[in-house]
Every structure is written in structure tokens, then in C-alpha cells.
């Protein structure tokens, strides 16, 4: 079973763990994800591989505690085993020398862009990174990303760090400055990805988004992850998670993401009770 080698709290409800999983690390490329089942009774949840070390045989995952299964995962400690890890999954992020690439991360999406930014830089691109969160405490990975980016811009909703506003405001500024942008990659909450796509669409700047649909098997067998892209149904787990943002039906995506809201709350309350009672 994959063992947790180290665990770190990045903010109030975001954790980072490094897991021993040599066969996963060996095959991973930026933009791919894993499925985690922390204990036998938990859900299968998808999490982006935030970093990987082929030599050490380790992968890093960063997750926000948003429900029952992430709460259980967060209750595991250094040295504990995770019941199941499956990966790498999904199509890797397409890499080539595009020129200037703006990479945008919001929320835990900030951690998810790290391997992509790193790889884009290695491929010879000029990377401008924009990260945004609700407040300063949630702006994770800032120094790591700064070393990999030609420029790093930060925004917070409350103005506690960087610009007070949204990542899309920074994006607009870069565009308005007249700089030629060859590609935009956005990873984060649905409304954020949607707004960024609205900014770039009229200018026909190719914009890729990484979709965090609900998933179950994550191997193409169930279809819960279906999204409409350019009028066609796609399975995000095997055909994604990256898609052309200008083609994605975000309304449908948002609705499908909330399909189990009530049940998720119920499960989370159940787990909270269990964890409290030890």
C-alpha cells in the first residue's frame, strides 16, 4: 500500500502529502491525476499530481478538505498507508514551445498548475503565472511558482495579498498591455475558468481548461465525468482533463458538479462524527 512519507498543512483547509508510489511516479507527465481511496469504505476521488520525483519514486498531492473523503485523507498521518492509489490517469498536458503562455491557478488549482508551469518553462516557453485565492492564507505555492515563472502575479478577493480582485483582471491587464499571448491555461473553480475563457474568446487566444468533474472509476467505464465540448459528449477522465475552454459547456459542468450536494453533506457529517469520537 502506498505510504505517506510526509504531510504538511499549507493553510487552514489545504494539505500537502508526499506519497511513495514508484510505479505512478515513473509514468507521470504534467497535467495527469490519480484516483485516491484513502480507506476501504471511502469514495474514489480524483486528485491532480502536483509534483512527482521519478528518482525517489514519490508523488505529491495537494488537496482541500471539502467533503467526507478528503476529510478522511487528511486524518491520515505521516507513515500511514493509503488504501488505494491509481494512476497516472488522463491525457498529459500538451507541451511544445508555444511562446508566451499565461498559466492561471485559483484555489487548489494553484498547486495543480505547478508541474505544468515547470514543464512549460523547460520546453522553452515564457511563462506568466497568475494565482488567485480568497485571502492571503490560501495563496499557496507562491515561492515555488515564482522560481519557475518569468513573472508571477497574485490576486486575492479581500486584497490581503497582491491585487484586490480576480485573476481575470490580471489577465485583462496583460492583454491590454499589448503583450502577445500564445496560449492560456486555466485551472480552478468553474466560474473562474468560465470568466477567463470569456476574456480570451473574442481575441481567439487558445485557452485550455482542466476540468474537475465528478469521477468514479476514472478509467472510462462509467460516464459520470461526461462534459459537452464543442457539442460532443466527452469523458473527462480519459479524454481530458484538459479541454479547449472556448468549446466547454460550463453551465452543464456546474450543474453536474452539484448533483450530489445534499448527499455529500450527509456523508461529511457522518465522517465528522466518526472522527470526533475517535
Amino acid at each position: 500500500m502506498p505510504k505517506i512519507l510526509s504531510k504538511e498543512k499549507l493553510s487552514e483547509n489545504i494539505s500537502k502529502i508526499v506519497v511513495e508510489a514508484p510505479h505512478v511516479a515513473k509514468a507521470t507527465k504534467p497535467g495527469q491525476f490519480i484516483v485516491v481511496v484513502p480507506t476501504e469504505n471511502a469514495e474514489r476521488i480524483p486528485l491532480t499530481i502536483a509534483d512527482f520525483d521519478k528518482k525517489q519514486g514519490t508523488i505529491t498531492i495537494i488537496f482541500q478538505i471539502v467533503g467526507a473523503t478528503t476529510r478522511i485523507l487528511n486524518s491520515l498521518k505521516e507513515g500511514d498507508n493509503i488504501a488505494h492509489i491509481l494512476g497516472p490517469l488522463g491525457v498529459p498536458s500538451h507541451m511544445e514551445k508555444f511562446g508566451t503562455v499565461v498559466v492561471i491557478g485559483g484555489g487548489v488549482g494553484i498547486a495543480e498548475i505547478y508541474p505544468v508551469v515547470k514543464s512549460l518553462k523547460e520546453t522553452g516557453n515564457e511563462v506568466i503565472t497568475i494565482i488567485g485565492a480568497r485571502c492571503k492564507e490560501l495563496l499557496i505555492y507562491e515561492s515555488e511558482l515564482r522560481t519557475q515563472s518569468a513573472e508571477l502575479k497574485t490576486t486575492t478577493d479581500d486584497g490581503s495579498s497582491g491585487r484586490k480582485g480576480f485573476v481575470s483582471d490580471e489577465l485583462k491587464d496583460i492583454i491590454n498591455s499589448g503583450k502577445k499571448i500564445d496560449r492560456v491555461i486555466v485551472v480552478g473553480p468553474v466560474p473562474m475558468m468560465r470568466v477567463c475563457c470569456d476574456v480570451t474568446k473574442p481575441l481567439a487566444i487558445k485557452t485550455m481548461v482542466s476540468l474537475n468533474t465528478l469521477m468514479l472509476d476514472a478509467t472510462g467505464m462509467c460516464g459520470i465525468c461526461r462534459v459537452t465540448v464543442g457539442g460532443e459528449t466527452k469523458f473527462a477522465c480519459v479524454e481530458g482533463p484538459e479541454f479547449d475552454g472556448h468549446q466547454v459547456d460550463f453551465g452543464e459542468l456546474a450543474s453536474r458538479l452539484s448533483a450530489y450536494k445534499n448527499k455529500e453533506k450527509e456523508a461529511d457529517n457522518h465522517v465528522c462524527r466518526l472522527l470526533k469520537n475517535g
Partner: protein
Amino acid sequence: MGERSVVERITDFQEVPLGYTLEEAISEAKRCIQCKNPQCVKGCPVEIDIPGFLKYLALGNFESAIKKIKETNSLPAVCGRVCPQEEQCELKCVLGVKGEPVGIGNLERFLADWERAENRKQKAESGEKKKDKIAVVGSGPAGLTCAGDLARLGYQITVFESLHVTGGVLTYGIPEFRLPKKIVEMEIDYIKSLGVEIKTDMLIGNVYTIEELLKEYKAVFIGSGAGLPKFMDIPGENFDGVYSANEYLFRVNMMKAWKFPEYLTPIKIGKKVAVVGGGNVAMDAARVSLRLGAEEVCIIYRRTKNEMPARKEEVHRAEEEGIIFKNLTLPIAYHADEKGWVKDAKCIQMELGEPDSSGRRRPVPIEGSNFKIPVETVIVAIGNSPNPLIPHRTPNLKTERWGGVIITNEGATSISGVFAGGDIVRGAATVISAMGDGKRAAKAIHKMLSA
């Protein structure tokens, strides 16, 4: 053979048939007239020596009887439950010409259950240990059978399974009340006792490619199944509340959503459930819905009951349990409420026209017959296609246009040393045909490595 009453069984997930008693089993086995040229065996895809095991059983020698079955079939408790005997051995049984054929399937089940109850599992015998390592992809019936047979011959077998639980459709597809998971686990334990190593959480194609496996293993068997759910591509199919049968059954069987929140994967069903399709999968999804507490469950099928591909027995049980059959009906669109949750299925009435290529009469829509069925859950059970992942990641692996991996009569694919069988080759078929394919490939692999 006794069955649990409808009122009792639709409230839980326990098995419906009770199985033969000892006396029933012996007297049923005695009906076999021990044909010189037994037709039943010809109807069995793995050629179990049926009169042979029935003879022991009639004499009350259960131990020898089950041993006889296991010479050719390593999953008797599964086959006794889910094989379509009425189209195979029992269809061919000579007694069936004038009366009832011998209840071969139920007797097979009886023996496997007896063995389990008595805990008499013989220590698995395997042949002389060989050095050759063989990789098997997928732990469904095809992969397990191939692995078991090769292990018996002494090879070192590693099974790679992408999911976190083994068994393929036996585990994630067929529900508990038709095939208890305890039984699947025990059959898999038997395969493991032959020395087979099973590695879960290993998606071949992603973690290792087939070419990478060939560097480490002398041969590879692909038994990755028909896991790709088909949709109808009609408007509204992506609304919340519209499931593929795979998703629905996966949540319930694999993730045990029926024990929510003890198990954390949720499932949401409304009072009114519609299942689209007429196969075993549709019957299973419908009967699961009843057990999860749906008030009204209907099957929407575009032909009539005569054309349904599901086993007669399962259609009959579904009817008994109160499932409503809306035959000659085709959904053409779904509508949703303001939250995006499905609220009705727009359907059109059909009639049967000329026979099509399958020999069944083709359903044709009746102009202007549109009507709506109110629903809160729709389960699309119109079939599955071969899992495309491995073919996508293996450029030299030849496939049919519809996705099936192409093999020779011996089960060899277009790549030397790589064999395939089961649903990845046939498209959604049966447990026993998958097992037959696994056996055939095991033979061919043994032949190749002995040459």
C-alpha cells in the same frame, strides 16, 4: 428449487433462489440418463463433463462431483448462478425434447455451495513450477480463468487490474442478489491459492504499456472487458439523474452505495425510475432500483418481450417484483427541472417491421405518437463496447471497426506474444464465453512457450 417471496426479497440485497436441498439435488441428478454421446457437453463453452459430475452427484459423492467440474471450470459457484443454461447445456439436454431438461446449472451451483459450506476446498494442485512469467490484464472471468489455467501448468502469473477490487463485471456489474460478492471473493481466493498474484490499481496502458509488459513477461493476455457504456446521443442525456447502467451498478455493487453513509459513495434515486434497454443489465438495474426504495420502476424497451436479450428467468423475476414493462417504446429526449435534474422522458411509440440483420423484427417509430413519462432517474442500459483504452495506447494492436480486438482461432492478437479474450474481443457477451476464451488462450500460450 425454492425462491424467496417477492415481498421479502425486494427489501434487501440477498439472493432470490434458495438452492436445492440435498434430497432435491440427488433426485434431480438421478434424472440424467447418462447419454453415450452427451449433447449437453456440446452446449457448454468450457465442455464440463456433465454426465460425469452428475453420476457422482446421483451417488451422493459430492466431493468427486465438484472435483470433476473443477477440472474444466474454476468458477462453478459463479457459473451455476449466472450462465444462461437455457441457451447452452440445458437447451441441448435430450430430456428437454419431451419434458424438462436436467437442472444442470442449479446442480452446479449446489455442488459449489456444498463445498463452500463444508469448507472442503481441496488444496489446489499446480504443476511443476516453471520460470516463465506471464502477465494477465483484467481480473474478470476471462483473465481469472486464463490465470488459473496457466498457474496450474506451473507458470508464474501476475494479474493487473485497474480497479481497487478484483472480479470485473462479477464484482462491479452483477448485483449482490444475483451473485453474492462473498462467493466471488471465495472463487478469487481459489485462483490466488494456485499461486496467482493479483495487483489492483494498475491501469495497463497508463502505468505500463503492453510493450513494456512484454519486456518483463513471456506472454500477455488481455481480458479488459467491455467497459465503455453506450449512450443514445439524444437531447438531455447529460442532465443530472441520467446514469449509465455501469455508473449506477458500480456505485451500488463496487462502492456499496446501498450501505451509505457507512460506505461513503452516494447514490440518488427518485420515486420514479426508468431503465432503458432489454438485456440482463437493464433487468439488474431495474431490480436494484426497487431494492433501493424506488416506488415505480419501468423498463423502456423498443421491441417486445419476445425480442428481449435478457435471460427469461430474470425477465420473469423482474415482472414478479412489479417492474413495469413499457415495450415498443423509444426515448427521444429528456427534460429537466430548473436545477438541471431530469423530470421526464419524451418517448415515441414503436411497431415491429421487417426483420433486420439480427433476424429480429426491426422496430419502427409510429409517426405522431409522442408521449411523456415522468421520471426522477433514468438508467441507460443499452449496451457496452470493448474498453478502448488499451487499443488506444497500443498502436499495433488490430481491432474491428466497432472496437473489438481481433484474434486468431487460438486467441492470438496481431502482436506476437499477446493474446486476448472475453468481452474485449466479443463486445458485451457472457461470463462463460469469456472463461472459454481465457482457457483457449492459456492453452495457446502454453503451446507457444513449450515449443
